[in-house]
């Protein structure tokens, strides 16, 4: 096929992006929105292996195909960023309320998801392409860190989303709670028993909240007890959970004797953090090396 022999250019990339968005529309009509709930373990691990395998094959064969050579180049980056950008701008201009149809739920909209997948593949390939150059020049360090960090962040954020548990626990002062409720209303046994000793709320003279805090005693499965004060920006880590101060009885205000805690368990978070710190290091190195066209190409 000549399509895959000749070198692809910018215009081919925009055609490819248009076709991808169209394909997304067709899948959306045929199969409905993306169901991220299906991507929980072990499906996400299978998808991750598949993605890495595709990248490896594309990287190894980059010299043999005009299409694959293009996929890891700036001529693919420009249309991939443009298409992703376009759909993200649509997201920024439409209120994200799922009842309002496709555009009200962009994260489950196939064209949006497919564009991000395309962007992820391009970013991953660029990282691979630039890695062998590390031996030749240190000026390519920021590019490798930024592309690899962005790739890791995108992949782990998307594939890890279904494995994340995000629950709300409502406790009254002096009582003990073990259950917490998910977004969809189902109750889970958290394996923790949490006793709320005291809920404190302070306000500014204007009535605006200044500080709210829950004095708790938490016992985990092993029977180990932890006493702590949880407040906004000061979460507690216990028994594999992170506990955040989330809310209170807003009608009672400062007199509230109820505290709402948010319990989060996100097994992919360390990998997302690794990606974020790689990007931060890359942005820092970029300040030092600057942007040199010969290097980044």
């Amino acid at each position, binding site marked *: 096929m000549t399509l895959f022999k000749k070198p692809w250019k910018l215009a081919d990339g925009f055609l490819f992006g248009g076709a991808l968005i169209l394909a997304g529309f067709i899948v959306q009509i045929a199969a409905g929105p993306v169901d991220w709930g299906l991507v929980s373990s072990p499906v996400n691990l299978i998808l991750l292996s598949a993605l890495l395998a595709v990248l490896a094959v594309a990287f190894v064969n980059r010299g043999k195909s005009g299409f694959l050579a293009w996929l890891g180049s700036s001529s693919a980056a420009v249309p991939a960023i443009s298409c992703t950008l376009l759909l993200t701008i649509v*997201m920024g201009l439409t209120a994200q309320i799922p009842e309002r149809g496709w555009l009200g739920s962009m994260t489950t909209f196939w064209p949006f998801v497919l564009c991000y997948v395309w962007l992820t593949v391009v970013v991953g390939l660029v990282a691979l392409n630039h890695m062998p150059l590390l031996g030749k020049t240190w000026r390519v360090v920021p590019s490798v860190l930024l592309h690899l960090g962005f790739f890791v962040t995108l992949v782990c954020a998307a594939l890890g989303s279904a494995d994340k548990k995000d629950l709300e626990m409502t406790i009254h002062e002096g009582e003990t709670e073990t259950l917490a409720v998910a977004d969809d209303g189902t109750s889970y046994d958290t394996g923790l028993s949490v006793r709320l000793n005291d809920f404190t709320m302070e306000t500014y003279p204007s009535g605006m909240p200044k500080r709210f805090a829950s004095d708790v005693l938490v016992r985990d499965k092993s029977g180990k007890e932890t006493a702590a004060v949880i*407040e906004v920006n000061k979460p507690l880590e216990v028994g594999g959970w992170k506990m955040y101060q989330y809310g209170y009885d807003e009608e009672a205000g400062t007199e509230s004797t109820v505290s709402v805690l948010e319990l989060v368990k996100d097994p992919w978070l360390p990998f997302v953090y690794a990606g974020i710190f790689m990007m931060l290091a890359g942005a820092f190195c*970029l300040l030092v090396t600057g942007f040199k066209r010969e290097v980044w190409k």
Partner: protein
Amino acid sequence: MSWDVFIWFAAAAVIFWVIGSVQAWIGKRSYAIINYGIGLAVFFAFILAMWISLERPPLRTMGETRLWYSFFLAVAGMIVYCRWKYKWIPTFSTVMALVFIIVNLLKPEIHSKTLMPALQSPWFAPHVIVYMFSYGMLGAATIMAIYILIFRKGNTSDQDMETTDNLVTTGLSFLTFGMLFGALWAQVAWGTYWAWDPKETWAAITWMVYLLYLHFRLARPDDKETAMWILILAFICLQICWWGINYLPSAHATSVHVY
């Protein structure tokens, strides 16, 4: 220290910046840099005094962020002048800083001591300060884009393009810091590093348009005009992200960042 005396500090700073700008035009470089520097010191003295009297960093309200923006625009202008010697740049950054000073004088918003719990975090100051520095650098890049599109049509020099690329690279690095600091902070405050809140969505959009600029420069180095139009688009997105979303109906429905 309060906003009542802002006009005096601002006036003194602007007078020094104007003197510096005039000296830049007539080629007195050292004097220009000294006067510009004094103006910056006067302006920063006001920010510091506000910080002390408010008992918190002045970064919460729109008016307070504009204060830093004016400051960093002038800083960015001075860096570009020192490094690349464009004699018109101090004038331009003075005018831009002045616009935001005037907005602050005409529309002084409530600048109280209150800081809601979510904002009481060590991430607060670095998050906003790196963002404002980035906005300052990218504001200077926008000035370069306008200059190239209007005054340099057809005979853009390599130095013009190099300056613009460098401003965008520096601005984008700081934009990356600001966005990721925000993600790390959100994780500590809410247990979610990214929630597609409209402010986050527009921050991602702004970040991506500047990425688009740099990658377009790699893919099509000779198409300078399109590159400059991407910068104009980027600047519009940046303004929507910064304050425009307060007026977007889509954001009003759902954002925790509208203030």
